[in-house]
């Protein structure tokens, strides 16, 4: 989580320095959800992150330099300059990068999970999405299909109460967690800012999935501490709300618990700083992509490469 935040902070400062094109989106305050849930996956379980889930990439082992290089649009970044901001995904590591269209990767996650089930593999697929994304037709189709086929999928709703500037009250009248039941799947609420709690419910969901118990909807309550993107000051969020959540910072919360266990949190933080400094230098040194190859790769020419079974250096499990 520390690393996640540090990488995003670095990305944001690169953006503010004008080195990152477009806008910049981060998941400040929501790190525990992406990290905790992805940590509960095995290496071979693919994950479909969304806007606030840099932690999922980090946990899956995407290097900070490759991520910063991606933000910068460099040739050696994850996307080789073809994609920007949060639209990255190292498929070798089992990360399927998001499309913008919300929540377009949910049906894709269902399809992956379905294939695992058909082939009798002990794998599951996990997709993240926000409260706003639940209003899209794709959400319904994916939830319905997942429930019908009882696929080994885990859906993680990151309920931060806002979709861009739109509060949940203008998105739905009933909490989406209650919708799990109407698709015949388990629904679990969790404190999205408690990384261990998120890990635990995801671990359970994964177990259920692999045992044939079907998909689970996990609703993680959290708060987006920054604007939707770096261009958004989020003045529509009441100050008290932010203050309240500032006191629930997932990283500080975990740090306190770790300190009690005798972990040297400050040393880790220092190590992370060093790592990100190095990564940032590495990323800034990467060359921009060569326009000569810009037309290549619209179509796959050789064998279709499949989503990798991952390396998962940070997984709570051994590779499956």
């Amino acid at each position, binding site marked *: 989580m520390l690393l996640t935040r540090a990488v995003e902070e670095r990305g944001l400062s690169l953006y503010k320095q004008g080195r990152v094109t477009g806008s910049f989106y981060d998941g400040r305050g929501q790190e525990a959800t992406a990290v905790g849930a992805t940590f509960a996956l095995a290496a071979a379980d*693919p994950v479909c992150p969304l806007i606030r889930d840099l932690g999922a990439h980090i946990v899956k082992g995407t290097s900070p330099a490759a991520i910063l290089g991606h933000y910068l649009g460099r040739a050696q970044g994850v*996307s080789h300059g*073809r*994609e920007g901001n949060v*639209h990255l*995904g190292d*498929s070798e590591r089992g990360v*399927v*990068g998001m*499309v*913008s*269209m919300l929540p*377009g*990767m*949910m*049906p*894709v*996650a*269902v*399809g*992956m*999970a*379905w*294939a*695992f089930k*058909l082939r009798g593999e002990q794998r599951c*697929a996990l997709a993240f999405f926000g409260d706003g994304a639940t209003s899209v*037709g*794709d959400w319904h*189709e*994916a939830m*319905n*299909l997942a429930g*019908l086929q009882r696929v080994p999928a885990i859906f993680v709703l990151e309920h931060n109460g806002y979709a861009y500037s739109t509060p949940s009250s203008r998105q739905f009248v009933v909490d989406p967690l209650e919708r799990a039941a109407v698709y015949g799947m388990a629904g679990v609420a969790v404190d999205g800012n408690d990384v261990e709690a998120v890990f635990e419910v995801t671990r359970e969901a994964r177990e259920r999935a692999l045992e044939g118990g079907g998909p689970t909807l996990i609703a993680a309550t959290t708060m987006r501490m920054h604007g939707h993107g770096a261009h958004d000051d989020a003045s529509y969020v009441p100050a008290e709300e932010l203050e309240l959540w500032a006191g629930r910072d997932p990283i500080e919360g975990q740090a306190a618990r770790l300190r009690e266990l005798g972990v040297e949190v400050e040393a880790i933080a220092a190590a992370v700083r060093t790592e990100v400094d190095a990564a940032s230098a590495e990323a800034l040194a990467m060359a921009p992509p060569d326009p000569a190859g810009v037309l290549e*790769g*619209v*179509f*796959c*020419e*050789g*064998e*279709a*490469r*499949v*989503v990798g079974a991952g390396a998962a250096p940070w997984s709570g499990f051994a590779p499956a």
Partner: protein
Amino acid sequence: MERVRAGLMERTYLEAISDGLRVALAEDDRVMLLGEDIGAFGGAFKVTAGLQQEFGADRVFDMPISEEAIIGGAVGAAIVGMRPVCEMQFADFVSCAFDQLVNVAGKLHYRLGLAAPIVVRLPSGGGVGGGPYHSQNPEAWFMHAPGLKVVAPSSAADAKGLLLAAISDPNPVIFLEHKYLYRRIRGEVPDGHYETPLSAQTVREGEDLVVMAYGAMVHAALEAAESIPEASVRVLDLRSLVPLDERAILDAVHDCAKVVIVDEANYTCAAGAQVASLIAQRGYEDLDGPVVRVATPDVPIPFAPALEQAVLPGAASIAAACRELLAY
């Protein structure tokens, strides 16, 4: 490269497609079929009849009415190694899965280096009294979406061969199967596995003028050509729209100097517009007359036979266009 194994059989266009699916299911267990009512029922047009019985309910799936999830689910299965073949009950319903096709499937490889080998079968086209929602030809929308291949067979043998080529292809392929041809066209179809290349084919030789068409319009073009014995009219079956066989198109223009391009789809921004623009740019010097297009005007396809026939191109309107151009 066409691989042909022993044996030929007279089959309808529809039977050829069914046979292609059967061959694919039998030889490759990554292949799975997804669609509405395609299982025990065999699909609205019976293309998948018997396949679920033969290969099991874990290969051939009846899906809920969820076009986005059918395509998105297929992409998901594909990127972990399956080869899903999806059926839209009518091509018209592909509009409901437009986003998954255009934004997910089509851009995946370029963005992430991840191939999505899915095939989407679209029973398309008019001439069957289907009205505005059961007669559409959506190919141009997908030609204008990078990363999707688009094929449109006109013969039984090509229907099977292009289907098997599409299933082998590591990319998403839109497979247009023309409803009008299903049971009206038959021909010799090789047994077993073979693949038709994604390129154009001359289906009638000629030197005075070339008619370019695909799908059902190839047959209308052939009929038109036959009706003009006084001239030597070539017919080029495009077969593949993405990739478009630009070489074959320009060669035909070079040989014939006069060209009529036929679309059953609506006129504006149709496949034929692209072909015409290609010729106007790169075949200009070979031309000996305007690049003539014949297409359905920009109207929804009306239901009543008298109205439908008034808007769809046919042998008569194609022949008239040819005659006029020949006289140029």
